[in-house]
């Protein structure tokens, strides 16, 4: 095949150009540390890398959200711990007040203590985070949720629960409703509440009562009327809601159990004629109203039999309600603890995921230095060879030999 002189030169130059291009590309890769310099180098890897980047950023964001959630939950937990501490002190005081030897002065001082503890509890309920927003106010965190009014403490927040997105599929509640923690607490033993009529003149005292068979509970209001005739005390149990008499003219023995319709209570002491005890289904109490009632009972103590019986009954009711409140606060606190643990474990798995994403990204985009350096050496050799051969071939000319 005939070769023209132009061909010789052009072929040689073209070869040198090609090698230079490849060499330049490898040099750029080495200096940036990236295998994929533009999307054209590896379109599939580029697309995938962009998506992995977003997944990584989203995952990191979940971690940040988790940290913020843990901080909020920690603050709430602290406030609840504070409240539980106050309530436990209240309970101790109540037990103290049951000491028969205490008189008006001692009870007064206990009442003063209780006022202080009530204020402490109110402070815990109105706790704020570092930015001045109230923890237990629901969505209206700008306004104090538990306010003192003439009729006691009122909750003016709402039931809103703020959530945080801590993983792709999980939104965790980071706030708790103040109403649930402090206001909507069951009374008494959780099913029904026993109380003594205000006009009782005897010294009958009741206990909190218990449920013998939940299936038999009717949810109706009941009344136990005592009749003392000729030294014999009997009582009737009337279903106020239906008007029916459930138990009639039962002989009364102090401390004996009275059972009806799934309810069992014990009355001790000596009720007078016409004394009445009411049994109602449990409604919701708020702990502040309970404390207010307790303080009133302590401060309104009169030293006679009936007065002592009233105090005992008041303390019994209060203990029951305070126990329920302690349970509720402890449950809320443990709920928060569970959530904090969940956030922690999600944070740990989020970190693992982040590591995986980084590895994937590196595999897609980063340069294999060993391969690149050996490529560079190889291409340099090729370029040198192309240049040398070009020089040699282009130097050959017949004109050199024509004289």
């Amino acid at each position, binding site marked *: 095949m005939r070769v*023209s*002189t*132009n061909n010789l030169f052009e072929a040689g130059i073209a070869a040198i150009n090609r090698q230079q291009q490849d060499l330049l590309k490898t040099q750029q890769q080495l200096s940036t540390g990236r295998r994929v310099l533009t*999307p054209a180098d590896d379109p599939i890897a580029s697309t995938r890398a962009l998506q992995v980047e977003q997944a990584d950023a989203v995952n990191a964001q979940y971690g940040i959200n988790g940290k913020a959630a843990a901080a909020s939950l920690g603050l709430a937990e602290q406030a609840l711990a504070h409240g539980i501490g106050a309530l436990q002190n209240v309970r101790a005081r109540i037990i103290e007040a049951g000491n028969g030897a205490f008189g008006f002065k001692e009870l007064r001082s206990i009442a003063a203590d209780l006022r202080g503890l009530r204020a402490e509890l109110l402070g815990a309920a109105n706790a704020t985070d570092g930015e001045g927003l109230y923890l237990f106010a629901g969505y209206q965190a700008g306004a104090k949720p538990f306010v003192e009014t003439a009729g006691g403490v009122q909750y003016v927040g709402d039931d*809103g629960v703020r959530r945080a997105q801590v993983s792709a599929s999980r939104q965790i509640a980071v706030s708790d409703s103040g109403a649930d923690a402090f206001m*909507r607490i069951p009374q008494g033993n959780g099913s029904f509440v026993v109380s003594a009529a205000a006009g009782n003149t005897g010294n009958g005292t009741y206990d909190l009562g218990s449920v013998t068979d939940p299936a038999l509970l009717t949810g109706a209001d009941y009344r136990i009327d005592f009749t003392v005739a000729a030294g014999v005390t009997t009582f009737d149990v009337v279903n106020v809601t239906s008007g029916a008499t459930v138990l009639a003219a039962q002989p009364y023995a102090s401390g004996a159990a009275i059972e009806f319709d799934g309810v069992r209570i014990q009355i001790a002491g000596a009720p007078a004629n016409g004394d009445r005890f009411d049994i109602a289904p449990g409604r919701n109490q708020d702990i502040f109203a309970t404390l207010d009632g307790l303080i009133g009972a302590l401060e309104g103590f009169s030293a006679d039999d009936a007065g002592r019986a009233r105090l005992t009954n008041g303390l019994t009711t209060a203990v029951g309600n305070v126990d329920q409140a302690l349970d509720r606060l402890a449950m809320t606190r443990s709920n928060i603890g569970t959530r904090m643990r969940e956030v922690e474990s999600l944070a740990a798995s989020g970190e693992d995921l982040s590591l995986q994403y980084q590895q994937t990204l590196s595999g897609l985009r980063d340069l294999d230095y060993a391969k690149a350096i050996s490529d560079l050496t190889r291409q340099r050799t090729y370029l040198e060879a192309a240049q040398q051969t070009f020089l040699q071939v282009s130097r050959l000319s017949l004109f050199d030999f024509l004289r």
Partner: protein
Amino acid sequence: MSSGLFGIGLSGLNAAQAGLLTTGHNISNAATPGFNRQQVLQSNSTPQLSGAGYFGTGVDVDTVRRIYSQFLDQQVVSSQARSSELDSYYAQLRQLDNVLADPSMGLSPVLQTFFAAVQDVATHPANAASRQSLLSAASMLDSRFELIDNRFRELRAGVDADIQSTIGTVNTYASEIARLNQAIVLAKGLSGGHPPNDLLDQRDRLVLDLNKLIRATTVPQDDGSLNVFIGNGQPLVAGVDTLRLVAVRDSQDSSRMTVGFQTPGGVTQLPESTLGGGSLGGLLAFRAQALDATQNALGRVAVVLAERFNAQHRLGQDLSGVLGGNFFSVAAPTVIAATGNTGNAMLSAAYADAGALTASDYRIAFDGANYTITRLSDSTQTVTGALPATLDGFTLTLASGAFAAGDSFVVRPTRDGAAGLSLLIGDPARIAAAAPIRTAQAATNTGTGSISGGSVNPPPPVDANLQQPVTINFTGPNTFDVTGAGTGNPVGLAYVPGQDISFNGWTVQISGAPAAGDSFTVGPNTGGIADNRNALLLGALQTAMLVGNGSASLQSAYAALVGDVGRRTNELEVTSRAEATLLGQHTAARESFSGVNLDEEAANLVRYQQAYQAAGKVLQVAATMFETILEIGR
């Protein structure tokens, strides 16, 4: 004519001299592009009859011909047209690829920062600093969209400018070819049939150069001139006449330049599909296939983000308790009337469902009875009898006037999406992070029922009675009544735990076991500054499948756009390299046939030189013979 030995020697000398001239010419032009080596054709002269037989009378130089193969030359020309087209397309694509290459200059990091800021507002909804950083991040997102879109616009303007300059050069070549046609015809006529080799070489060179700009086919004429045709048969050069190409605004779409030619009556536009080959073909292919599609895809990401973010934002409530408004503002889809429209219709377009938008442009044409809407990416047509018409996520409405038969408009739903995006909110308090409603259960409830936080039903606008207080009263463990304005106050509804209960544009779920007499309320969320429900929903848009009828998220739509450009560029790199190799091979084949080999010419020099010397010797001998004759007579 010969006169014995002297004549023979002279003819030999002439022939050798012609050979030397031609060889010298070849050597001098060895590096001239497009030069075909020339060769002297000599033949022996008519013999003279004498008594002893026929005696030769020397050599005649017939002509100088160029070593030229039309077939090989044609191969090079058509390969050049293809190669230039691919090279030009590839070069433009490389620029596009570079715009999207640097990951930190792309859209992703800014999009992620924006959604991180949304999450921050969800975590601290009442915090002024978090809200302000959301506004800053949104502003940065807006700027980044514009930055990338501006680069696209620059490339587009570059294409327009290149089209103009290419057409100018094409016109120059065309007039040069016409001039050469004239000269060749003249020269051929003057010489009585000898080919004017160098002029022919020049003309072939011009045709090759022309093919670098646009594919041109040639038809040689009998008189020696060459007719050049472009497109689907437009005669660029016919003899000595040329067609003048001009860059004109596309009559269908006045925002772009295209190619037309000058006629006595005005300018006629050439359809772009016929103008393949050469760098012009590459530019047009780049614009139609890559640039338009990429800019549309970016615009689509912007429009979908803005529309969906706005839709969710309007379901929320800001820090002052006012219902959320639009967060971003988006320009309406671009509508361009064809310049030849005779009717006075004003067409307007609006977005209907951003999730259904495609990255294609559309044309709507009226034939007198029906409107035909063509999706230009795959040429599917939809025929409708009346406007307004909605398809693929946008609605076309006749704002005023009427179509005349033959009118058409081009609709670009997403082309200007990225440029038209802007932030509407300036006050951080107006970010709607909260939901407008909240629920509560009565303190006196005895059952174990609980009510969810509540959500607002999409799409906006919200129900007029959304924030009216509504009470759900349980009359028994399994039935409830609803009271409140706008609910119709239904009674005796059956209770299923966890089922959606929806009135006045909101939805709640009640679960657990409510007792008779329990009640739940739904009402306005006054003072709800720590509510982040809407912010959580806004944050969820980052990973939701918003684009392309639920097939891609915002990030994956952007990644697909980048990957598409990368893929095209990669493809073009491979094909242009392959075509360049092919061109190299064809050129080598042509060169091996027609190119000058200096060594060969050196040998020819020696040959003709010796022939000259030998012929000179013959002349010397002839002269000596003559002197001998003269000596006899003295």
